[in-house]
């Protein structure tokens, strides 16, 4: 590129402008392909998948939020009769087509980026979640942080609940999941965790279960499952609670006109083998399973103290119980009970909040090929309710209380393990631990692992390290022990 001497090149000046010019041209001719205005989008906050009416078809339900009325500018548009969110369904042979049908029905593009909750009907889960999970992992709108749930019954029913304290059921579910530790009866499993559990060797996935329950019913939930004397119904898998005499709520009827308010409850876990639903964990089983998988996070526990541990000092007359529902507790009855105390609950019960991190699971392989597992769970407890006025300053009493708590935890874990064995699944991940520490042994046993696990001895060691009595150490009782000066502080 020679130039004659003295010739100032004007071309190069233009040449260097070429880049900005090209850039501007690019800008002007670019098509804004992904430009998506907010009013063109339907925000879907929750998604439900049911079986379609034809075999192999899916019915997708979406809960859409009505941004115009909920968040729009203050003015005459907002009205009380327009719902804040509504539910749309569509049926199609595949999830993608169903989603497109939803777009067609909504008039706006279905946008799942804020869809935190994906509810899968139990029937769909029984057929296998793998095709769903494949769809969710390829599409960029779905994320690993979205939560999967299994619904007992129809997923569309779950999404259609209204009148709860949260306006949107998906928020209700999300918050319930986030506070799953508060109940101890479920746990949050995200899509990513589910996939990870599916792909991990030696672990079977679980998902929380959501169901619709009426709020003003006698059913106080599953808390009381272990205490039949309180009138709770025993746990039953896959039977949605139907209060008698209550007409089923239609999805579109406003909440005010008749019907019973219903809300959602997230309790229990659904067990999967590979990707197929094989059964449910309920009640204590869930409790124990969650304890094995995650430990405790502010989880409540109610313990009945066995009779021989009732401390001799305190006697409160038990109420007269109907026959047939007698508790296994024997009490030493003491006269001089104040009148009207027959309604008191029986003595020997306490509630505590438990904190524990996930238990250590150690596989022990003997050289001869024997296998056993040791589970060590270290728990810290905070007492919240103590019925019976125990003197916790007494070391003996304290140890007995501790023992009873440990025993109860152990019992529940055992129940969970029994259920795992019955369902032939390994949701805790014993096999995974074995794989990680003894990969050769794992490769030998992995074919028949769940059956093998059922027959493998598992030592469960629960250690209650600290027991925090809270801000008080006892209930002052006038005329009983406690007011006689030093008796309380012996």
């Amino acid at each position, binding site marked *: 590129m020679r130039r004659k*001497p*003295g010739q*100032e090149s004007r071309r190069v000046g233009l040449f260097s402008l070429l880049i900005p010019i090209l*850039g501007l041209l690019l*800008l002007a001719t*670019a098509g*804004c392909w*992904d*430009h*998506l*205005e*907010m*009013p063109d*989008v339907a*925000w879907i906050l929750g998604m439900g998948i049911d079986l379609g009416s034809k075999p192999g078809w899916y019915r997708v339900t979406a809960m859409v*939020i009505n*941004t*115009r009325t*909920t*968040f*729009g*500018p203050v003015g005459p548009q907002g009205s009380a009769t327009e719902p804040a969110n509504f539910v749309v369904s569509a049926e199609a042979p595949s999830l993608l087509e169903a989603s497109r049908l939803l777009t067609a029905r909504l008039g706006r593009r279905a*946008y799942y*980026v*804020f869809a935190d909750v994906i509810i899968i009907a139990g029937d769909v889960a029984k057929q296998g979640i793998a095709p769903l999970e494949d769809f969710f992992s390829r599409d960029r709108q779905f994320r690993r942080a979205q939560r999967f749930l299994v619904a007992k019954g129809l997923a569309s029913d779950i999404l259609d609940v209204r009148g709860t304290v949260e306006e949107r059921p998906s928020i209700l579910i999300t918050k319930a999941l986030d506070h799953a530790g508060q109940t101890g009866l479920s746990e949050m499993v995200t899509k990513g965790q589910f996939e990870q559990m599916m792909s991990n060797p030696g672990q079977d996935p679980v998902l929380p279960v959501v169901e619709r329950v009426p709020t003003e019913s006698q059913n106080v939930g599953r808390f009381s499952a272990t205490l039949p004397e309180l009138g709770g119904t025993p746990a039953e898998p896959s039977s949605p609670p139907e209060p008698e005499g209550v007409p089923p709520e239609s999805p579109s009827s406003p909440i005010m006109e008749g019907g019973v308010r219903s809300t959602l409850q997230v309790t229990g876990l659904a067990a999967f083998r590979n990707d197929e639903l094989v059964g449910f964990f309920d009640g204590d089983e869930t409790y124990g399973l969650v304890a094995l998988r995650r430990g405790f996070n502010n989880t409540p526990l109610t313990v009945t103290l066995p009779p021989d541990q009732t401390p001799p000092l305190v006697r409160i007359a038990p109420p007269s119980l109907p026959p047939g529902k007698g508790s296994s507790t024997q009490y030493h009855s003491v006269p001089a009970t104040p009148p009207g105390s027959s309604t008191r609950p029986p003595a020997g019960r306490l509630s505590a909040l438990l904190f524990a991190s996930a238990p250590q699971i150690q596989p022990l392989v003997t050289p001869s090929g024997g296998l056993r597992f040791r589970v060590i769970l270290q728990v810290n407890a905070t007492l919240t309710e103590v019925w019976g006025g125990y003197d916790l300053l007494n070391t003996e009493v304290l140890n007995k209380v501790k023992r009873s708590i440990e025993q109860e935890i152990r019992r529940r874990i055992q129940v969970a393990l029994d259920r795992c064995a019955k369902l032939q699944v390994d949701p805790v991940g014993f096999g995974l631990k074995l794989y990680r520490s003894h990969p050769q042994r794992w490769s030998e046993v992995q074919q028949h692992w769940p059956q093998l696990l059922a027959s493998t001895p598992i030592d469960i060691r629960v250690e209650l390290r600290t027991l925090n009595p809270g801000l008080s150490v006892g209930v002052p009782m006038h005329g009983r022990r406690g007011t006689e000066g030093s008796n309380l502080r012996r």
Partner: protein
Amino acid sequence: MNLLPERVLPPQEAGPVSRAVPPGGRTPPGRRSRPGRPFRRGQQPGPAHGPKQGEGLGSGQGLGRPTPGPQIRPGAPVEGTPPIYSLVDRASRTPLSYRVAENLQRIKVILGNSADLVTRTLHVPALSGRLVGLSWLEGLVDGVRQSEYIVASLQKGKSLQEGPARNLPEQGSAPREVQGIGETSHVVTRPRPRESEGLVDFLRQHLLAASDVSLGRTWEDVLKAVLNGRTALFVDGADQALLVETREVPARSVAEPEVESVIRGARDGFTEDLRTNTALLRLHLQSPALRFEEIRLGRQSQVPCNIAYVAGVAHPQLVQEVRSRLLRIASRYSFNLGVGALEQLIEDHPFSLFPTIHHSERPDKIVAQLVEGRVAIIVQGTPMVLTVPTLFWEFIQSPEDYYERPYLASFVRMLRFIMLATSLTLPSLYVALVSFHHEMVPPPLALRIAGGREAVPFPAVFEALLMEFSFEVLREAGLRLPRPLGQTISIVGVLVIGQAAVSAGIVSPVMVVVVALTAIASFTTPSYSVAISLRLLRFPMIMVAGTAGLYGIAWFTLVISLHLAALRSFGVPFLSPVVPFFGEDWKDVFVRAPWWAMRRRPHLYTRGSRQATAGLVPQPALFAERARRGNREKE
């Protein structure tokens, strides 16, 4: 009188710097110049600094040869200063006459009988009644000084016969000649070789009471002086003129600069008069090393311009570069237009959006920069003083930072950085998030924005551009309003109009908030020129964000960074000391280290010379004494 010349003479070249292409050979590389065009990249020699590792070179060949600039001899006037050249009167190139009458007539002709030109004659008794002519420009001259120091001293001088006047030529020894003008009767003869010098010298040394008297040998000198406020004094029998300093020009008093005010600090500001400005600099920096060099700008206007630097601190090659650039354009324009034009004529990157020359109205700031090794350019007629070289980070520094303690100064400086980035990117980020990446917005906020946007008929890009444009209009309108109202109206205006637009459903409420925040952020930038650059850049950035979302913003930001990284200001990379990295200089970029910690000058144009000794941390005298004793013991 015919004022037009018969032919127009070509402009004289101003020295070796702007030499035209030598015939018969290739131009040496790196020395291409054309009249009238500003300096181009690749031509400045720049201060030599060793290539640092990691800085890298271009293709590695063909480094331009350094300029053989004009040599500077101490004490001599700068060579290459362009001569006066008037297209109007060729006669101005003639020498001075030894007759007063002719000289006075000539000056009237040259200045075109200008209404403010005053001439008078008087007889000096000390020179035996010799005629002396004075001419000056009314309005530029202090009448009191003039009458006292010149007229009175001339009229009261002693007689010729006494003292040193003995050697002066006699008046009456020559034959009579008829005088054309004037009332005198004595004759004027052509002086013998040394006579006029002696005469003028006598006047200067013994008669005139004025302190600043210089000699004018040609009409250029006389005109320059008279136009600058001096009084020209012609003597019969001498072909040189005395130029007496009698300047008193109408000038603004020294006041605080309005756009660069500080809470704590000096409050004087430059004025339009060159000498006042140099005086202010001298007041702030009383060092013998502070030098001023004069260059006259403009072929016809001859506006004085001073280059200020601190000898021994400023790199001599930098000073040379400034000098040569100014000289290059000094005779290219007929009339100099002030500092703004000057800046645009000597800057390195005329097509760039970012300024590479800094300017200020504050003497303390200029002095601080001089002490760091920069060169200042002061021009008569504008209170702005330019400094070179400039780094990008200076546009974010404010003199306030140096008067406050380091914590506040550092915090405010970091705030300014964040605001700088915000003012450039906030609207485009909003547009990108709302149009492309909805998932990044937290859901409650996203749904709220969505609700707000339901009513708006425009896409977000258009909304943003509309609001930004209206804000620019408001801001510009606010400049024309009286000062206290101006700034307030621009911000309040945008909020009020924005609110009205929201109620009308034209824009969404979040957009108004975004634009107002951007406006406030842009006001925190201390330098107006960079604020303008960012304002201009904001619009293409919004468009890019509307086209390609965050990818577009990333792309555009990188383009801007590339551009900034390629800029040089008089040879110094624009983004130093961040890149290329000079650790010691980081003390004044993002934070403001305490004064006792800044011990070295900026690296690139002073080689990091020390400006302070060690051990300056304020501490009780006892500890300092012990430390010093400890140091001495070690030696």
